[in-house]
């Protein structure tokens, strides 16, 4: 591990320099395995948040209080520590320029991590594919990568829309509820424009978003999903 950066009170981005790393594709993940002194092992999957073009491999990890792996990664790890990783894995939830667009990224909480990789990759290759990010978080303080997303939006690189489900700053202009069909109809391109959609978040969030998109008339085959949750982090 090379460096650690606090993204929100519960989430850190952890950057690694990896030996024998074959490189990854935007959207892939790694399996992290921890082994205790008595030999007990715990393994969890974490999406890679950095782009293939970035120098370091970055995992953005949300600390789950009852988790077996995330509290160690977020609270205990220090630069210079090493970790057992397997990967990169996954070829389904991957975006590369030949997959085209327009590209709609839908994030629930820390599900933004692989979408961040896709966004950075999109920028790194100078892609002209239009891209939008719809990001659902509890509050503005829970929005991961906020300064970077604001910068990218200001530069016109990506159109970012937020929905804050619990707490909103005064005068908040964005959405203020859990994701639903109406929000998706507003934000997504029309089904006729055939957006390619990547949805990542907790299981219930992904179900809601994917079902709403299908109900709106989007092609199921162009809605790619990645669910996390209920595994003890």
């Amino acid at each position, binding site marked *: 591990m090379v460096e650690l950066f606090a993204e929100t009170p519960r989430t850190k981005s952890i950057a690694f320099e990896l030996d024998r790393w074959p490189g990854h594709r935007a959207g892939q*993940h*790694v*399996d992290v395995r921890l082994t205790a002194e008595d030999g007990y092992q715990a393994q969890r*999957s974490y999406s890679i948040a950095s782009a293939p073009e970035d120098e370091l491999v970055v995992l953005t990890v949300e600390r789950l209080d009852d988790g077996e792996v995330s509290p160690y990664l977020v609270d205990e790890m220090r630069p210079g520590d090493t970790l057992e990783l*397997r*990967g990169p*894995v*996954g*070829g*389904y*939830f991957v975006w590369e320029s030949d997959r085209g667009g327009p590209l709609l990224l839908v994030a629930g909480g820390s599900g933004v991590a692989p979408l961040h990789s896709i966004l950075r990759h999109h920028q790194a290759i100078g892609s002209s594919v239009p891209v939008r990010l719809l990001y659902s978080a509890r509050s503005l303080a829970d929005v991961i990568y906020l300064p970077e997303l604001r910068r990218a939006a200001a530069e016109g690189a990506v159109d970012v829309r937020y929905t804050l489900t619990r707490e909103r700053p005064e005068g908040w202009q964005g959405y203020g509820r859990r994701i639903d069909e109406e929000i998706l109809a507003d934000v997504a391109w029309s089904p006729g424009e055939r957006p390619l959609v990547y949805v990542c978040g907790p*299981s*219930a969030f992904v179900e809601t978003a994917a079902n709403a998109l299908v109900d709106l008339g989007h092609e199921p085959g162009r809605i*790619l*999903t*990645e*669910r*996390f*949750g*209920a*595994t003890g982090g």
Partner: protein
Amino acid sequence: MTALDGNAIAGTLAAVFGREMTTAIGTCASCGRRSLVGELAVYVRGPGTVVRCRHCAGLVMVIVAAHGVGCVDLQGLEALEPEP
């Protein structure tokens, strides 16, 4: 219990099959529907990992690791075709 999806077993399947498997297509032995492995419903909280068809909820895979040996039971699949 909420299901994850085939992405959650990408690492395990890659270790067993020696290649990326979330883009492989599995045919459910119960209903005959073809799905990308990445889209299958995956339940990870039990003693083993249970994988079900999203269309008919038929059991398609069971993955168990014990004493350092990994076992993948594919009896619920009529076919499993890796991406060409």
